[in-house]
């Protein structure tokens, strides 16, 4: 051990409590990365001041955490945990530079800076008034109940999915997705959080709009739930505005009303990282829910780890995570079937063109319009599937 060595803390490290069922947990923020840690690491991060060596840090930790921490323990935590993550450095060395924090998005680009997002969303926070929420729910229900009386039947449903309607739904979807993201940001501002940028990105094989809500980790669980629901709630607000048009017998309003709900529902998807996932994670108080699922599944296939985080959860929460893990397993084949829909479409396209072509040159000329799409989809799929496989294998160890 290097007696007298005084580690130094990175300049931008901050600590905040993490509201979870995992006991006494904290979030350590540093350089765009966020770590959930227990009292030991939190106490150590707070104690490091560049003046204290391992011995004095251990004495301080013993006093604050009541754990029998030795200077060797402190050295292990500093050198094996804090230094590799750029949170601390040893004297005479520089802080380790980390790449950007991991993201679910293959590609992303901010469109509206965080400051502008806050300015945009602050005037809308009043929409989260509980009375208004109740009124909107009643309006929404009332519109649904009156739709059949206004001539909206099963045949009307079928006209919604006609190919000529696609451009209209595309425009509506982009607008409602933006409004949805503003809803997340407004909810975050409403509870005192600081939303980040709104941007565009690629998730799996599709274009998404996103709001950077990493700051929401510092909020209590019930407020995080509100932030999770903010997007869907704003779409409900939009639906109710259209619903007023339905009551006023404005043409096409029933179709628009229904379509907003069709766009709204997939956000509650609990398995991929849409709003439903965050809702389950925050309602249970279990961060990194997908990792917990992998802990449950690795136990089922005989790779039970002795120190699984999931084992530290209270019984009811652990059971809920296990049930969620079961549904995740059932969801995978369904997801792959839908995810592979473009491949089936491409197969039909190329097969038809091959059958109708008299020469290879004619075939190649006919598939040019679809070639770029095919390459892009294959590239996204291979990239995403390989990343998913690596992630699963790493967490099944």
């Amino acid at each position, binding site marked *: 051990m290097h007696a007298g060595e005084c580690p130094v803390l990175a300049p931008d490290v901050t600590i905040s409590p993490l509201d979870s069922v995992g006991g006494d947990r904290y979030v350590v923020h540093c350089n765009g990365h966020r*770590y*959930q840690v227990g009292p030991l690491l939190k106490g150590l991060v707070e104690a490091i001041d560049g003046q204290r060596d391992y011995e004095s840090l251990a004495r301080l930790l013993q006093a604050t955490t009541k754990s029998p921490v030795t200077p060797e323990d402190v050295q292990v935590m500093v050198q094996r945990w804090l230094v590799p993550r750029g949170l601390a450095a040893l004297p005479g060395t520089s802080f380790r530079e980390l790449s950007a924090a991991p993201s679910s998005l293959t590609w992303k680009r901010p469109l509206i800076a965080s400051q502008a997002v806050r300015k945009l969303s602050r005037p809308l926070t009043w929409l989260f008034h509980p009375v208004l929420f109740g009124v909107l729910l009643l309006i929404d229900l009332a519109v649904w109940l009156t739709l059949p009386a206004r001539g909206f039947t099963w045949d009307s449903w079928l006209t919604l999915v006609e190919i000529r309607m696609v451009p209209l739904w595309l425009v509506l*979807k982009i607008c409602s997705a933006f409004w949805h993201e503003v809803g997340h940001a407004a909810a975050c501002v409403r509870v005192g959080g600081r939303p980040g940028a709104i941007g565009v990105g690629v998730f799996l094989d599709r274009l998404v709009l996103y709001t950077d809500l990493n700051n929401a980790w510092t909020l209590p669980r019930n407020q995080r739930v509100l932030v999770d629901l903010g997007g869907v709630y704003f779409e409900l607000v939009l639906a109710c505005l259209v619903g007023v048009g339905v009551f006023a017998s404005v043409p096409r309003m029933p179709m628009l009303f229904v379509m907003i709900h069709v766009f709204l529902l997939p956000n509650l998807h609990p398995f991929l990282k849409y709003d439903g996932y965050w809702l389950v994670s925050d309602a249970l108080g279990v961060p990194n829910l997908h990792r917990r699922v992998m802990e449950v599944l690795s136990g089922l296939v005989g790779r039970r780890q002795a120190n699984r985080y999931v084992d530290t959860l209270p019984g009811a929460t652990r059971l809920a995570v296990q049930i969620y893990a079961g549904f995740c397993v059932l969801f995978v084949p369904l997801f792959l079937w839908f995810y592979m829909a473009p491949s089936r479409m491409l197969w039909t396209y190329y097969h038809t063109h091959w059958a109708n072509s008299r020469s290879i040159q004619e075939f190649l000329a006919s598939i040019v319009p679809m070639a770029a799409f095919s390459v892009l989809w294959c590239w996204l799929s291979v990239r995403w599937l390989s990343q998913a496989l690596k992630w699963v294998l790493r967490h099944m160890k």
Partner: protein
Amino acid sequence: MWSATIAGKEVRVLAKKELGIKQLSDVSIEDLEARLGEELEDREEMDFCLIFWGD
């Protein structure tokens, strides 16, 4: 405070209760590090803005 030798290395378990460790027999150093803390997943709450292109 207790310790064990794993993969030839001395591992001191700092706080058994906090780290959620029941048995030390198959705990690697990497696992211990993981239990001290872990990176939180990115919180970019998203909504897809194109109709599913296979539908």
